């Protein structure tokens, strides 16, 4: 069965080493991801990410500086994260020249686990790819039906 994968990317005007540090250093992660990040950046390391008074465990999978970093999260407390009880987040950094980096993130595993309420905050979104195409199509058809 193919995964339901969220896939996004961004082009950054900075060298790959700088982007790598921003993505992986815990004090940097606490600026773009969770409020509290306790994590050693090495494969197999168990850590914690806090979002306000909520939070949960996270386990590092891949650390290949400066191009690949992945972790699993959203698994039940006290369980080891595996395919089926967690989501896998993978960052891929690709240098494009000396001062530019393409950063891609995928998050997979959504079809295999329960849907956390914390993830259901409402945001507008206009730039979906892959899965997004299917969803866009659904949304437009459904929109037309509702107004029709």
């Amino acid at each position, binding site marked *: *069965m193919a*995964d339901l994968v969220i896939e996004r990317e*961004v082009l950054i005007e900075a060298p790959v080493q700088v*982007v790598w540090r921003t993505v992986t250093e815990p004090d940097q992660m606490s600026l773009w991801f969770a409020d509290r990040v306790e994590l050693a950046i090495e494969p197999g390391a168990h850590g914690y990410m806090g979002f306000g008074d909520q939070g949960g465990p996270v386990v590092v999978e891949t650390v290949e500086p400066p191009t690949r970093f992945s972790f699993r999260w959203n698994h039940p407390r006290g369980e080891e994260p595996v395919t089926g009880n967690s989501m896998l987040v993978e960052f891929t950094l690709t240098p494009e020249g000396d001062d530019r980096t393409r950063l891609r993130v995928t998050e997979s595993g*959504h079809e295999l686990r*329960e849907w956390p309420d914390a993830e259901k905050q409402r945001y507008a*979104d206009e730039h979906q790819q892959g899965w997004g195409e299917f969803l866009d199509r659904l949304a437009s058809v459904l929109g037309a039906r509702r107004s029709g």
Partner: protein
Amino acid sequence: MTAQTDDELWSAIGDPSRRRVLDLLVSNGGVSASWLAGRVPFSRQMVSKHLVVLEQAGLIRRRKQGREVLYEVEAGRLDQATRAMADLAAQWDGRLAAIKRLAEAAHDEAKNKH
């Protein structure tokens, strides 16, 4: 929505062939299993299996018209799935935008020191 029904929902739409069936129902509505089978690259039996899973997940419903059984999408349920995925994608867009700001600021700062 309970965790149980969520599991069903995500595994129902996680399969590409089922998404194909769902796509056809979204675009055409009110069609039979035979009609669907004529438009997909898999067997009529597979179509029936997919329809059962989609119906259990609440994504489609069936109605009888004469002797025929017709299938159509449950718009509310699909909408729910669409929105949940779009929300997650938008969260990642927000995080990537923050990484971009931080990395570019760090890079500018390093450049200015030279």
